[in-house]
């Protein structure tokens, strides 16, 4: 191939992988809290704030947790650089 790849794609790909990673994490939490704590007889359920504990951890804590995780990961690892059509690095290179 006779072109130089847009230098911003590395970061973009990394961000896509991080998003997928958070998705997998959310799934794991959702699955293991719901079915780990909720598979038994409902008579034996423990309760947190009036809700069955499986539901509390899976749906309430899981939701708040993923919201915070997305916030932290995006703020720490996502770039705020240009998304315009032209790669700013190449523009610089051409001027030189």
């Amino acid at each position: 191939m006779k072109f130089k790849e847009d230098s911003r794609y590395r970061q973009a790909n990394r961000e896509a992988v991080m998003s997928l990673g958070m998705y997998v994490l959310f799934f794991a939490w959702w699955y293991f809290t719901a079915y780990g704590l909720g598979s038994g007889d409902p008579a034996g359920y423990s309760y947190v704030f009036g809700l069955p504990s499986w539901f509390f951890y899976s749906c309430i804590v899981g939701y708040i947790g993923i919201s915070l995780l997305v916030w932290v990961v995006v703020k720490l690892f996502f770039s705020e650089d240009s998304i315009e059509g032209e790669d700013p690095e190449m523009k610089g290179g051409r001027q030189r």
Partner: protein
Amino acid sequence: MSNVNMIVPLVIYLVLVFAVAVWGKRAAAKPSDTKGFLEEYFLGGRSMGGFVLAMAVITTYTSASSFIGGPGVAYKLGLGWILLAMIQVPTAFLTLGVLGKKFAIVSRKVGAVTITEYLRARYKNELVVVIASLSVLVFFMASMLAQFIGGARLFQTVTGYPYIVGLIIFGITVVIYTTVGGFRAVVVTDTIQGCVMICASVALLWAVVNAGGGMEKIMAVLRETDPALLTPTGPGNAIPKPFILSFWVLVGLAVLGLPQTTQKCLGFRDARSMNNGMIIGTFVVGFLMLTMHLVGALGRAVLPGIEVGDLAVPTITVKLLSPFWAGVFIAGPLAAIMSTVDSMLIISSAAIVKDLYHHHAVKKNLPVTPEKLGRMSLAVTAVIGVIVFLAALRPPSLLVWINLFAFGGLEAVFFWPTVLGLYWKRANATGALLSMVVGCGGFFWLMIGKIQVWGTHQIVPTIVLALVAFILGSYIGKKPDDETLAAFWGGE
């Protein structure tokens, strides 16, 4: 139940939405050429900030089913159905994060305003474009019709006024503001509708918990009614594991294929907007899903004995709130409906004006002025809106039937061509075509034949089949030419 008090807040709300749409339209810069016009009318000049982006993605995604259908099932099946609804929490960060900046950069490189245009630039194949445009038109018309019918029935149930009155009031509102204001009006009104949805859901949940005497008491009543209402699997194992896990595909991963959502990924202003959109979007969509479905599930303890699930939320609203406030809160689901319809309307219009007509005109060297394109865009949007409106007066059974396939069908057609086009250099037209045909055809075949693989929803084998077809096709067909690759991956 006919009540004027209920209509007043609704009408005030609709007038407000309308005013904001017109204001949004006037705030837009007047475009000087056809490219400027198209980018403005169909994409709002790529100017969405983080909050608006989040709201636009979420409100388009949350439709009548999140406000009426879903909570109705939660009423019948209990907490297990809320567990299912929570699978949708990642929608915003997944869509924006995975397609994300690469999609934004690529669409700017090739000047794509719609998903179809992106597919055209990537695969350079007329058939891909025609299939994409037709799927958008057919599936969107069917979905819009279903939303209209749902909205009008809801209106009828709550206010007691005839079906047609509701249809006219909100149907005409949404068609007019979308036609006049274009994409910009769509996202501005979506933002307001999102806020209304949040307020409506909070107020309703608060009313339900209050009426039930607190969470512990409500849970005790549910346990007495049927202990299975408190389990993840529901009464009589109504929500088996393979079924609920399929939803991680249907309303999870495969949402990356829905053109009405992915379109929004082309329209944000800068990277910061996208980042904030992910954060706000995740928070808001989870909030709406949780509160609305809790209303349904807990409502069973407060108002038992509602036979039809779809009537659960309307009945709860009317019984627990005073008429005036019921009117305010019924605006929530209507907002959800309108914000879904407006996005579909504008994309359907784009499919005809931009993807089919404008491209053809440019190729044939026909003279196209911004004025002419402007008149045409307005006319096409209005005509599609009016057709759907008329269809909702006496719903044709064919469209109602197609709607059952619309959500999964769109995913089957668009998922792999959209995602792999972005991340796989070998992806080519043969692969995309094969994937679209096999995906859509396979989905219809599995759905109609009620064929299930290991107890999963039909979307799961469909997505697998479509992937196999895509990979096979891509290796059979020729490699994409250097020009395409350079346009997509090159730095300049």
